[in-house]
Every structure is written in structure tokens, then in C-alpha cells.
């Protein structure tokens, strides 16, 4: 889901930066209210885990691969804004240091993987709170929702930006992109994200000594 440079038109890239910037500012302020000596190790390690889990590339049929993101666990343990900022930081490091995901497309990637993923997962978790597998459902819903936004941003490119019948940026249409991206996340990477979220959540919740911020608002 890491959209590389050159895949999105400048118009879309600018629009995603304009959308993401106020969200980053608000989220960062929220992070500063929550981050202290007690929460730093947890938020730090969970964010580092998000970075590491994205390195576990899983091959799937069709000669492609993918990975979990690890955003939802932070969203349900702390707050979706904290997850948004943490995963945005992970994506920034990936783009700048490792060339994974573009710089012009960084805001788009942050909106899908970090923002939409965290919030969709968080609301799914609260909706299914009483069910034992709520963390699994939350993880699955979060990453699948991210893939919906990514396929939308990619798939609208050939509708608007063409030259002599040749697409200028990402060339595949919305339907193809949607089936490939959302489908693979529903069947494979969503399941991995769900299992990861479930495992870490059960582990943390079982250990009562770790105090986590409640999600009551």
C-alpha cells in the first residue's frame, strides 16, 4: 500500500497534504498530552513493532506480496490519534531512509495506512467490544479500510489524467485496483493484521500491571 512517487498526480498529492496537515497538528498535540515516562516505552515499542511487522512480506497468489501495518493495536490500546501519529512517523522513516513509499505520496500513505486504518479499527473495536474476537475484527477492518482509500486514490488517476489515451500516472482503473488491493487485504493481510492485533491485545490485557489509557471519551 506504500504508493511510490510518480503514481499520483500533483493535484491529488497536494490535496492529500492539505487534508493531512491539520490532522497531524491535532494528533501531535494529543500525543504530547499522553506521552510520558509511563506510556513512552509502550508507544515506542508498539511503533517500532509496526515498522518491523511491515518488513514481513507475505507472498500471495498472483506474484505479489503484502504485509500487516500494526496501526490498529495502537489505536485500541491508546487512542486512534496516537496510532495515526505513530504510524505516520513509521511511514516517514520508511519513505526517507528506506525509499519505501514516495515523498510526494507520503500524505496519501499516511491518510490511508495511518489515519483511516487507525480510526476504522478503533470504531470496529468499540462496536464489537463484547465479542471475544473484537481485536481481530478491529485489525481486519482497519487494514481493509486503508486499502479502500489507497485503491480509490490510485484508481481515479486514469479517469482524470491522460494524454493521447495514455494514462499519465497510475494506469489501472478503479475496478481492477479495488479488486486487487481490497480483495488481497480482505483475504490475506487483513487476517494477519487481525491475528497480530489479537495476540498483542490479549497479551497486554492479561498483564494487569501495564496501565493503558482507557478509550472512554
Amino acid at each position, binding site marked *: *500500500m*506504500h504508493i*511510490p*512517487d*510518480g*503514481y499520483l*498526480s500533483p493535484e491529488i498529492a497536494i490535496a492529500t497534504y492539505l487534508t493531512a496537515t491539520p490532522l497531524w497538528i491535532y494528533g501531535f498535540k494529543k500525543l*504530547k498530552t499522553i*506521552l*510520558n*515516562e509511563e506510556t*513512552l*516505552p*509502550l508507544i*515506542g*515499542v508498539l*511503533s*517500532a*513493532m509496526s*515498522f*518491523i511487522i511491515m*518488513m*514481513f*512480506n*507475505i*507472498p500471495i497468489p498472483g*506474484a*505479489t*506480496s*503484502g*504485509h500487516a501495518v500494526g496501526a490498529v493495536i495502537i489505536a485500541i490500546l491508546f487512542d486512534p490519534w496516537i496510532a495515526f501519529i*505513530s504510524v505516520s*512517523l*513509521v511511514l516517514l*522513516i*520508511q*519513505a*526517507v*531512509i*528506506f*525509499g*519505501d513509499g*514516495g515523498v510526494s505520496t507520503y500524505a496519501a500513505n499516511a491518510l490511508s495506512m495511518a489515519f483511516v486504518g487507525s480510526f476504522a479499527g478503533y470504531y470496529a473495536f468499540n462496536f464489537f467490544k463484547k465479542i471475544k474476537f473484537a481485536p481481530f475484527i478491529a485489525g481486519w477492518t482497519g487494514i481493509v479500510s486503508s486499502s479502500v482509500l489507497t485503491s480509490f486514490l*490510485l484508481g481515479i488517476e486514469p479517469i482524470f489524467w491522460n*494524454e493521447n489515451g*495514455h*494514462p*499519465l*500516472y*497510475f*494506469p489501472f482503473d478503479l475496478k481492477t*485496483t479495488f479488486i*486487487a488491493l481490497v480483495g*488481497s487485504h480482505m483475504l490475506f493481510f487483513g487476517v494477519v493484521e487481525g491475528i497480530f492485533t489479537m495476540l*498483542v491485545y490479549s*497479551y*497486554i490485557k492479561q*498483564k494487569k*500491571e*501495564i496501565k493503558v489509557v482507557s478509550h472512554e471519551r
Partner: protein
Amino acid sequence: MKDKKRLLYIFLSMLLFVPIGLLTDAPAWGEWDSGYYQKILGFVPKGIKSAKSINAFMSDYSIKGLSDIAGYYISAVVGATLIFGIFFIIAKVNKNEKSH
């Protein structure tokens, strides 16, 4: 404290097994290089061809002159350290701001 340590152990074991991620060299859907478009479409979309991207320091999680596995390990450690370090700095600055 003991439990935070255990979480750290989960993290460290993930780190240990990170080369498993190298087992596939299939790219993610929608993250292809230009060669793929040339092969599939017969042309490379202009925007993708002329895209300027930065020269990433450790591009593709590898380090020149090192084996894939060593490069991947070092990438994992560097990335995780940077992320944890940035949070650490934010927390420190934050604490100082609050105490003033």
C-alpha cells in the same frame, strides 16, 4: 516493569525473525518499478517515468556491499531505533515544556 520487559521480548523476537520477510521478492501490488509497466502496457506512464524520488539512504532495506540478510537486519535495527529515539526525544522535550 516485568511486563513491559515481556513486550520488549516479543519485539526482539520479531526482530530476530525479520529475514523471513525476504523469502519473497514479489513486489506489492501497485508498487512496481518502471520495467513492469513496459512489459504489461508496452509503455511507462509519463509521470512514473519522470518521477523524482529522493536517494534513500538504505534503499529497499539493503546496504551496498552487505548480504541481503545483514542489510535487512541492520535496516530493522536502524528503523526501530530511530522511531523509538524520536518518541524518546518528544517525551523529553514535552517533560521540559511542562515543568517550565
